[in-house]
């Protein structure tokens, strides 16, 4: 893979270099992030305070004394916090059951939960507003009948409903992070605990959990940021129930179209950025130092816990969970895509149609949006993986000075809410500072990279850190060149991680909504935006067909890669 060929041989004594090429890479990455991430964000903050050319708190006063904005701030924090808590509470046991126990069908479940990461989260909102609306939601009706209730037990258009949908569609972020850490945990500590007489439960509580803590915090953070900066779910579930979040307010403000609207959006965005940064900072400050402890240098296969008599009940519980959280919503959306009248039963022939499916393959705008998304997601994922691989090599295999700087910047980028990144790019990249890429796919690609590169980087870093450098050294001692040992030893070992890393960047970019909503133009509409427009503007069945098609593609690719890599591909 070209990625690694770009890397020059390690600096050896006696060789003279005027300039360490590793720096070049660092400089290139830092330069890119400086121009497209750091400076735009600084400009955003500047604009919030200097909206009319001179320092003024007017905008702040206007925005923050407006009660609707206040409730949006509170709603954002409340919904993101609870989604984070519930998300981790779901993800940790699931990751443990699926990764470290002899649960029945755990491989299937793992794929199922990871796949949820790969579908657009707002598809969940589409399903749940149908299933749990207070007037006629079928799930509500069924529960009402079952328990003889006088009214529907759930109202999806509420804070609880919002948290439910956010949780069930953002917990996979935590699941992936936690299960990755769990799978490469050094089992000797757990063995030691067991040998010393502790049972499985005590070992889990006293060894596994504390060792996993940094990863859990990191996972929690991911869910918090993702839920707090989501646009699709709050706008479909929250807004009809008068629950606004900061993101929906920001996009409303931008849509008002006036300069004042833009200033107000900026001012709100600064708040969102601040919250995200504080959370990021606190979690790193308190727990960040401990994160490397769990990684063992040797390649290990974690031992599998026997669930004993709990094996069947736990499998049933996980199945139920999968049914409610994954299967039912997906099936709902799939059925909607072939239903003419959503008020009538799907089980009558005249109510079934494939017209909406035909539409998604023939409509010009849908096809061109799909092409745009494909081009921008592939470019973002490929460039992102390139950066990720170089960063992984720098971080794991070298101790070059300054390698932490780009790492830090990438982390901050992914921790910054999407809407903030998009807004900052719009304001700084439309010609004001010599670069005008507004209304092009380039600006999308850059935004996607800033936001999603880190998922790829972490995957490659974690794979590379599990490979002992002694293998490469052995190859080189035996006479192979640096390049050759890279090609023959390192690359085959981390190849599945490279594929997984590419996918972790590609998928969210492919259906991205929040940033695309702000950055799209006539020629650069994306699939996510198109789907969202169909859902909220043109026709929900067509939107459902499009969402189902994306699901099929995701499952298909996942299956194919699994086959191609001999089952080694996993995220």
């Amino acid at each position: 893979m070209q990625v690694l060929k770009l890397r020059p041989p390690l600096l050896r004594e006696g060789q003279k270099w005027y300039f360490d090429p590793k720096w070049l890479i660092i400089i290139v990455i830092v330069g890119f992030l400086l121009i497209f991430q750091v400076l735009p964000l600084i400009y955003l903050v500047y604009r919030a305070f200097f909206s009319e050319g001179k320092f003024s708190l007017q905008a702040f006063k206007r925005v923050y004394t407006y009660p609707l904005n206040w409730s949006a701030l509170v709603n954002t924090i409340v919904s993101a916090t609870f989604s984070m808590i519930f998300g981790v509470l779901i993800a940790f046991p699931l990751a443990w059951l699926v990764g470290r126990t002899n649960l029945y069908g755990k491989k299937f479940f793992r794929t199922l939960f990871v796949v949820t990461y790969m579908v657009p989260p707002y598809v969940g909102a589409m399903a749940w507003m149908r299933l749990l609306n207070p007037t006629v939601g079928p799930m509500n009706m069924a529960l009402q009948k079952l328990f003889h209730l006088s009214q529907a037990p759930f109202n999806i258009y509420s804070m609880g409903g919002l948290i439910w949908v956010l949780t069930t569609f953002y917990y996979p972020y935590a699941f992936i992070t936690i299960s990755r850490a769990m799978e490469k945990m050094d089992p000797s500590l757990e063995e030691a605990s067991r040998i010393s007489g502790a049972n499985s439960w005590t070992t889990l509580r006293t060894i596994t959990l504390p060792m996993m803590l940094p990863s859990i915090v990191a996972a929690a953070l991911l869910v918090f940021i993702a839920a707090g900066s989501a646009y699709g779910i709050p706008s479909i579930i929250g807004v009809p129930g008068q629950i606004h979040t900061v993101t929906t307010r920001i996009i409303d403000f931008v849509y008002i179209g006036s300069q004042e609207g833009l200033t107000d959006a900026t001012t709100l965005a600064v708040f969102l950025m601040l919250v995200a940064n504080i959370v990021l900072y606190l979690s790193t400050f308190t727990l960040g130092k401990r994160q490397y402890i769990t990684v063992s240098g040797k390649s290990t296969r974690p031992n599998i816990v026997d669930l004993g008599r709990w094996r069947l009940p736990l499998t049933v519980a996980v199945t139920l969970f999968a049914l409610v959280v994954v299967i039912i919503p997906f099936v709902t959306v799939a059925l909607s895509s072939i239903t003419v009248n959503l008020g009538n039963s799907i089980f009558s022939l005249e109510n079934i149609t494939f017209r909406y499916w035909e539409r998604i393959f023939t409509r010009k705008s849908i096809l061109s949006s799909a092409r745009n998304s494909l081009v921008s997601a592939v470019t973002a994922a490929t460039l992102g993986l390139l950066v990720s691989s170089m960063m992984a090599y720098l971080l794991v295999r070298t101790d070059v000075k300054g390698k932490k700087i780009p790492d830090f910047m990438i982390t901050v980028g992914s921790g910054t809410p999407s809407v903030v990144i998009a807004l900052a790019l719009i304001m700084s990249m439309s010609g004001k500072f010599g670069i005008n890429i507004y209304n092009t796919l380039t600006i999308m690609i850059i935004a996607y990279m800033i936001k999603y590169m880190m998922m790829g980087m972490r995957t490659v870093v974690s794979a590379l850190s599990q490979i002992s450098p002694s293998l490469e050294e052995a190859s080189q001692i035996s006479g192979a060149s640096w390049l050759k040992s890279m090609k023959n030893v390192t690359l085959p070992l981390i190849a599945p991680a490279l594929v997984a890393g590419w996918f972790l960047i590609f998928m969210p970019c492919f259906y991205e909504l929040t940033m695309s909503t702000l950055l799209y133009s006539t020629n650069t509409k994306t699939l996510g935006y198109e789907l969202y427009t169909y859902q909220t503007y043109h026709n929900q069945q067509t939107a459902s067909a499009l969402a189902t098609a994306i699901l099929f593609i995701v499952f298909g690719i996942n299956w194919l890669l699994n086959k191609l890599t001999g089952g080694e591909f996993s995220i």
Partner: protein
Amino acid sequence: MGYVSDGFVCLCITRFLKTYFAIGSVIMKKLSLVLSVLLVLGSFAFATGSAEKQDATDQGLSGKLMIYTSMYDDVIEAIDETLEEVFPTVDIEFFYGGTGTLQAKIAAEFTAGKLGCDMLMVADPSYAFELKEMGVLQPIMISNASDLAFDYDKEGYWYPVRISNMVLAYNPEKVNKADIPNSFYDFAYDPRVAGLISMSNPLTSGTALDTISALKDKYGYEYFTALGKQKVKIESGSVALTKLETGECKVIMILEESVLQKREMDKSKIEVIYPTDGTIVIPSPIMSINDQWSPNKNSAAAKAVTEWFLSEEGQKNIVKAWMHSVSSKYPTPPYDAIPTQEILKNTIPVDWQSTLSLRNELRTRFEEAVAKK
């Protein structure tokens, strides 16, 4: 390895700047390299996204024509096909969005010095006044203007091209017409349907803006407050129609054309209620952008397309797309609708000038009233 790097503690951005400047001039070269690589990649990506050009030139027309419109995609698709037959040599492209969305887009484009469209077919007539004032419109004189049954700009800056009617709708399979509001007034004040009503967002929809403007003139700003108390859901017409189908909503405020389309295409039973206190009639304009502002500078094609839309043939297509004709020469109403003249007997008038001058106030006050819990 966790998500967060331990290097994070140094949050101060100044440190980057220091590092950045310390390494100095070497970076600048590399940066420009990265930039140019990115730009090349970007323009490649962009190029693959652009449409192929046609260069045939019979009828004397050629080139591209970009039309921003707020019509639904089903309607656009049908009209687009007809246009392709009528103007085979012009590459006509539609870009759709709610009127408000398009207004925001045009405002941004205006600031940047160039609009992205050659023609506009948005819903809010008051917007035509604004664009004319901004000096971006191209006057087009048509020969059959006297056939128009509605007001048009005498200097040719805009013409009405289709009539949309804001009405109420209900689902007779789920509720009785007698049990629900039959007027805009009751829609906001009838406690029987509290929490079970829905309407479009004046922030993104032009017809919704015109509607709340007319209702404010008739019933005052209290009408907005009443809607808020009524817990009206704010969403697009297609979402609202689905909620009517499922029974999640009992009555909705919606454009007549959306209901008619659903009746014809989906054989839906959903019915229009022409409100007893008057229908809100919105003649949507067609406008062309002048050469100074338009991207394709194709005013000849724009004129031809305008003339076609206002011809009998064009109006026939508008009616086929479930909207009412603006031409007295073609009075046939759309599928399942009552005649235009019937509707015009009982309307709530819209003051376009005040809609324009109060646009932000209307939107803000409406949002404040309905977005509160």
